[in-house]
């Protein structure tokens, strides 16, 4: 099970080499054996998963297939509303979040034949980049225990890296898909704002939240994105643009694509091994025929300040009741972040939104004038030690959170598609990663570059030693 991808498992299921029930049983057994150490799941729905797998197996027996996701085991960050299962959002409260209906993205994957194994651990209220959780346990990095799995979609990344599932959904408000993907050595895609419906996912910041997949390979991310993307009347910000068949363009050669290696901001203060890994990845893309060149992008620092205002204000509005009535149930750093939002004025919030609009137009016009995509690092250092990042006062922890997510947050403010792709390991075995960032709604090009690199580099064959 640990070596499957969605693509290879799908072929095996189609060829009747393995059945959906066998796959589900094997995944559940692996979760039962290894997850007490990793702590990636909050809720395991064994009965529901096996019931769904039996139904899908019967469909195959009748000659019916729902497509490449038929019988594929997946799991969801515990902020997506999934029928019949509680949604804690990483809080102490088992049913903190309830929606009128199932999350749209979850429903689309279910309709496409995916089997839900359960709900995944996450940072409390999705507020934090390290994957620690005082209520459900700190998610352990499958590559190196005691180190951060990254957050806030910590369980999603760790479960994929550990081979418990072949795909998961996460949410990304400031990097919460890409940060854990980078820490855990898996692929994480934040699509363009509006590309994937947010309906039925607990909001943290309405205008910054993105829903996207975490998988072992870029091809798998393309397959999941193709299933969940597209207009949804339940999300007012969902785009009506058509959805490409992403998986069909991945093998198009990258020769001639213009790749900008953003040299300002993104490499400042970067860990030396991480910097070397990202530069080496850019070299691989150049060897594949892409026109890689250093570029200077508009300074993201002001945008990050603007994002902070927007996110703090929106998250405080969303969770005001919890902050007011049960502040003692929140971790100190989470509480501190939310309370700051209560002090953001309407004037500053609106000015921040107006600034964001201007920055987005300027960034797209300038950064993509001479590049089809950008390559930048995802995390400033390989997965840090969990105890170290949790230590200190709430203010110190919040400051540490901001520094760790400084490379991902700009693309939430800009709403641009960004995929985190593994690019090797540090000397002590922690994953390295880079992100490919594209124009609005051009996930196809970002995935194409990531896929080309992944196939050339071959890191995907390496697995964490868990058994």
């Amino acid at each position, binding site marked *: 099970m640990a070596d499957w991808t969605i693509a290879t498992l799908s072929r095996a299921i189609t060829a009747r080499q393995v059945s959906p029930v066998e796959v589900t049983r094997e995944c559940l057994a692996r979760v039962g054996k290894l997850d007490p150490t990793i702590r990636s799941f909050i809720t395991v729905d064994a009965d529901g998963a096996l019931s769904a797998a039996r139904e899908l197996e019967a469909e195959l027996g009748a000659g019916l297939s729902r497509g490449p996701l038929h019988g594929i085991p997946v799991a969801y960050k515990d902020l997506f509303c999934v029928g019949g299962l509680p949604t804690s959002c990483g809080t102490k409260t088992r049913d903190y979040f309830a929606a009128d209906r199932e999350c749209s993205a979850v429903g689309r994957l279910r309709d496409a034949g995916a089997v839900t194994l359960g709900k995944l651990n996450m940072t409390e209220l999705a507020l934090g980049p390290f994957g620690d959780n005082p209520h459900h346990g700190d998610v352990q990095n499958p590559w190196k225990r005691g180190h951060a799995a990254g957050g806030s979609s910590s369980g999603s990344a760790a479960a994929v890296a550990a081979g418990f599932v072949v795909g998961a959904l996460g949410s990304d408000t400031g990097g919460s898909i890409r940060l854990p993907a980078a820490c855990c050595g898996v692929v994480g895609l934040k699509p*363009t*704002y*509006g590309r994937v419906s947010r309906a039925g996912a607990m909001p943290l910041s309405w*205008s910054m939240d993105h829903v996207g997949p975490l998988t072992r390979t870029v091809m798998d991310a393309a397959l999941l994105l193709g299933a969940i*993307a*597209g*207009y*949804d009347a339940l999300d007012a*910000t969902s*785009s009506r*643009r*058509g*959805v*490409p*068949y*992403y998986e*069909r*363009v991945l093998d198009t050669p990258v020769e001639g694509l213009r790749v900008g290696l953003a040299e300002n901001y993104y490499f400042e203060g970067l860990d030396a091994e991480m910097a070397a890994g990202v530069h080496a990845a850019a070299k691989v893309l150049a060897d594949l025929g892409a026109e890689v060149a250093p570029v200077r992008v508009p300074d993201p620092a*002001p945008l990050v*300040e*603007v994002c*902070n*205002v927007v996110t*703090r204000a929106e998250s405080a509005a969303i969770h*005001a*009741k919890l902050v*007011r009535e049960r502040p003692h149930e929140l971790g100190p750093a989470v509480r*501190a972040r939310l*309370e*700051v939002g*209560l*002090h*953001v*004025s309407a004037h*500053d919030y*609106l*000015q*921040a*939104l*107006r*600034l*964001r*609009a*201007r920055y*987005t*137009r300027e960034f*797209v016009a300038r950064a*993509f004038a001479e590049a089809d995509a950008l390559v930048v690092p995802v995390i400033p250092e390989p997965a840090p030690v969990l105890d170290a990042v949790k230590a200190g006062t709430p*203010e110190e922890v*919040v400051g540490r959170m901001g520094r760790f997510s400084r490379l991902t947050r700009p693309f939430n403010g800009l*709403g641009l598609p960004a995929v985190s792709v593994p690019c090797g390991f540090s000397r002590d075995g922690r994953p390295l990663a880079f992100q490919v960032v594209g*124009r*609005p*709604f*051009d996930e*196809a*090009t970002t995935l194409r570059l990531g896929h080309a690199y992944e196939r050339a580099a071959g890191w995907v064959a390496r697995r964490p030693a868990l058994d």
Partner: protein
Amino acid sequence: MLSFPSRTRMSDPDRTPPAAADLAAAIARLAGELPLTEEPSGFVAALENDPDVREAREHSG
């Protein structure tokens, strides 16, 4: 209507966390040159109106 403990009210400047004051100062510094025509919803328009997306064959979402 929501009501917060007095320690978190905007009307009590002595209690405003330094981080909140920093955010307000940043906006004051950055927003000075905004044109009158810039709207809060301009972000989504900037994404949707980008004309230079090369998409493969599309299917409806």
